């Protein structure tokens, strides 16, 4: 009898322990209020301005100093590459190998997990309404694009492109006109390090899928000519080209013209094409090119060059991608402009309908890690472009000195309104370059740096209004030690009275960490403004 009792106790306990979904930090209730979701794209809006209006955040230059840490979540990944989608009560975030998480906005407990992304949620979390209700979209670096029911976390569809054998879904897609536009790069950037690999044959590109069904609608490669054998090494290994020209970053959509804009990276192998390190304008309905404007010619580079491998081109280029999406704002005369930041440290202003260059300005030394790396922002009303410069020591190709810091440029002519440079003479830790995407709001711009600092700059003159050192270990809501380090990749988000940022990035020589940090405005008028907004 005693034996039977023991079995009765032990067996259910054993089964519970074996259940993969049983986590101590799971919420007691997993209901989700899907109203008021934000933001609408990697770049906050379809124009990729990374500007959060007063309708979507109460944080501004007068109250930002009252931001305090609300809670920290210990991610499983040491290289977070996601950007949250936030509803009234839930924060959706990609934890790489741990999948897509739905976190309670107040407490950080987990409402559901989706681990169908085969281990690598690598994009911002997007949302759109389909016949299934609110649908979340994300890409997994090797597995493709996923659509997930926001209420339940169940996968609705999963798609991949068939045109490229080893695509890399690294950039965040954009939703527009019932379609999801997915930037495509290539795993060959890494395979090139294998000396026995015949580098390289694939092209980057842009793919369009039906957002409701996942059906592929069109695919536009960045290289149209097929790769051919251009040489051999080790007697047998064939070298191929042209190749590369990946699209690393999110596209930008202009609804009035129906045009999609995106930047490209370098050629992996020779011969270099006219489409590398360029800005593309494409008809979003058909996938036809409207124009392509190249800014750095002859740039051939792959990771084989980093290790001195035989796949490195004979005359490797500086690897000056467009890692940041181009953004669209109007200038003071009302003309629409397209503005793109390049890893060379340049900002280029273009006519979005012709590709004609209005002005170009170089701010930093540049290098294969930027220069301008993940993203820029703009405040159309203030007529300002906000440009974060990293200048992380990485093959800087110009004679300019490194100038990591924040720059505010006049939209009209690129003149510098103000700048706030990091003090690189006083570095006692990691390089404090501004590599991650940034976010702007009323009277301020917020940026994280590679040393783990995050700061709010005044839009007026660039003075620091608030700052916080995230390079520390936090007590987390899920009992996983949350350690902050380099702030890189997608950067901070402002929504309502919250500032959300992931700290730590183990990729490309940066400092790994796993802290998802949620700050909130504290103080009487913070709750008042929040209440006012909720009642609208």
């Amino acid at each position: 009898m005693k034996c039977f009792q023991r079995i009765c106790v032990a067996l259910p306990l054993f089964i519970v322990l074996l259940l993969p979904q049983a986590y101590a930090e799971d919420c007691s209730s997993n209901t989700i209020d899907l109203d008021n979701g934000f933001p609408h794209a990697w770049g906050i809006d379809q124009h990729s301005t990374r500007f959060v209006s007063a309708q979507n955040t109460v944080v501004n230059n007068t109250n930002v100093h009252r931001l305090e840490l609300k809670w920290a979540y210990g991610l499983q990944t040491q290289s977070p590459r996601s950007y949250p989608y936030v509803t009234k009560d839930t924060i959706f975030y990609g934890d790489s190998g741990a999948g897509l998480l739905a976190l309670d906005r107040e407490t950080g407990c987990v409402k559901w997990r989706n681990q169908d992304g085969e281990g690598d949620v690598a994009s911002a979390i997007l949302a759109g309404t389909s016949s299934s209700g609110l649908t979340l979209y994300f890409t997994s670096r090797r597995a493709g694009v996923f659509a997930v029911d926001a209420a339940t976390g169940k996968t609705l569809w999963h798609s991949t492109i068939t045109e490229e054998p080893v695509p890399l879904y690294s950039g965040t897609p954009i939703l527009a006109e019932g379609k999801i536009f997915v930037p495509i790069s290539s795993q060959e950037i890494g395979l090139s390090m294998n000396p026995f690999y015949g580098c390289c044959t694939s092209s980057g590109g842009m793919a369009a899928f039906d957002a409701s069904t996942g059906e592929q609608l069109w695919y536009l490669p960045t290289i149209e000519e097929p790769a051919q054998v251009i040489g051999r090494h080790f007697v047998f290994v064939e070298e191929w080209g042209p190749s590369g020209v990946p699209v690393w970053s999110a596209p930008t959509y202009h609804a009035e013209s129906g045009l999609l804009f995106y930047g490209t990276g370098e050629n992996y192998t020779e011969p270099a094409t006219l489409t590398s390190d360029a800005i593309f304008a494409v008809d979003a309905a058909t996938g036809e090119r409207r124009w392509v404007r190249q800014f750095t010619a002859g740039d051939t580079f792959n990771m084989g060059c980093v290790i001195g491998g035989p796949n490195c081109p004979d005359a490797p280029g500086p690897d000056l991608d467009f890692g940041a999406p181009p953004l669209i704002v109007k200038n003071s005369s009302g003309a629409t402009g397209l503005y793109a930041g390049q890893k060379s440290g340049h900002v280029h202003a273009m006519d979005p309908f012709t590709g004609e260059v209005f002005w170009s300005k170089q701010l930093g030394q540049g290098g294969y890690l930027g220069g301008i790396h993940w993203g820029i922002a703009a405040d159309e009303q203030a007529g300002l472009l906000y440009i974060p410069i990293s200048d992380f020591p990485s093959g800087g190709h110009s004679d300019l000195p490194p100038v990591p810091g924040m720059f505010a440029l006049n939209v009209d002519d690129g003149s510098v309104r103000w700048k706030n440079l990091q003090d690189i003479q006083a570095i006692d830790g990691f390089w404090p370059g501004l590599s991650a995407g940034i976010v702007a709001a009323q009277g301020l711009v917020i940026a994280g740096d590679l040393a783990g600092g995050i700061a709010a700059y005044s839009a007026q003159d660039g003075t620091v209004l608030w700052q916080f050192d995230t390079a520390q270990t936090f007590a987390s809501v899920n009992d996983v030690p949350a350690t902050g380090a380099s702030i890189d990749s997608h950067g901070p988000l402002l929504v309502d009275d919250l500032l959300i940022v992931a700290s730590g990035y183990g990729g490309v020589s940066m400092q790994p960490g796993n802290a998802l940090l949620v700050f909130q405005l504290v103080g009487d008028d913070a709750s008042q403004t929040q209440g006012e907004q909720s009642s609208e």
Partner: protein
Amino acid sequence: MSEVPQSTARIWARAVANAIDIVLVPTFALFLMLVTGALESAVAYADGFPYIRVFFLGVASYLILNGWLLWHRGQTLGKYFLRLKVVNFQTQQKADLWKLIFLRALFFGLPHAALIGFWYLVLLDWVFLIGKDRRCLHDYVAGTQIQPAD
């Protein structure tokens, strides 16, 4: 078990023979990979790392280098150089080819697994050598023993 005359091979000779095989087979696999281009194109990596192709390259290399010797003499190249041979433990005659390939050769990958952290598997295989028959675990599995070659 019947009494069998045993003059087992020295352990150092077995280790050297094994080391020769461990170097030769992957080296030949590399050559085979270069010639065939089996791991050279993007298509090979379409479903992630091509473990199956690597496995078959290893098997093909092992058989090309050692197949004839195993069949006719119960030897690999390493054992040929060290004048050793694999025999059936019961009969002390040449071991069956199928046992050498489908049972004994399965353990050939262990030293390579040691390179990626699974060193204890090699230890487990070799710890059986301390028995009086001087037989590794793979010898027990295949029913074989190593003897000096004539």
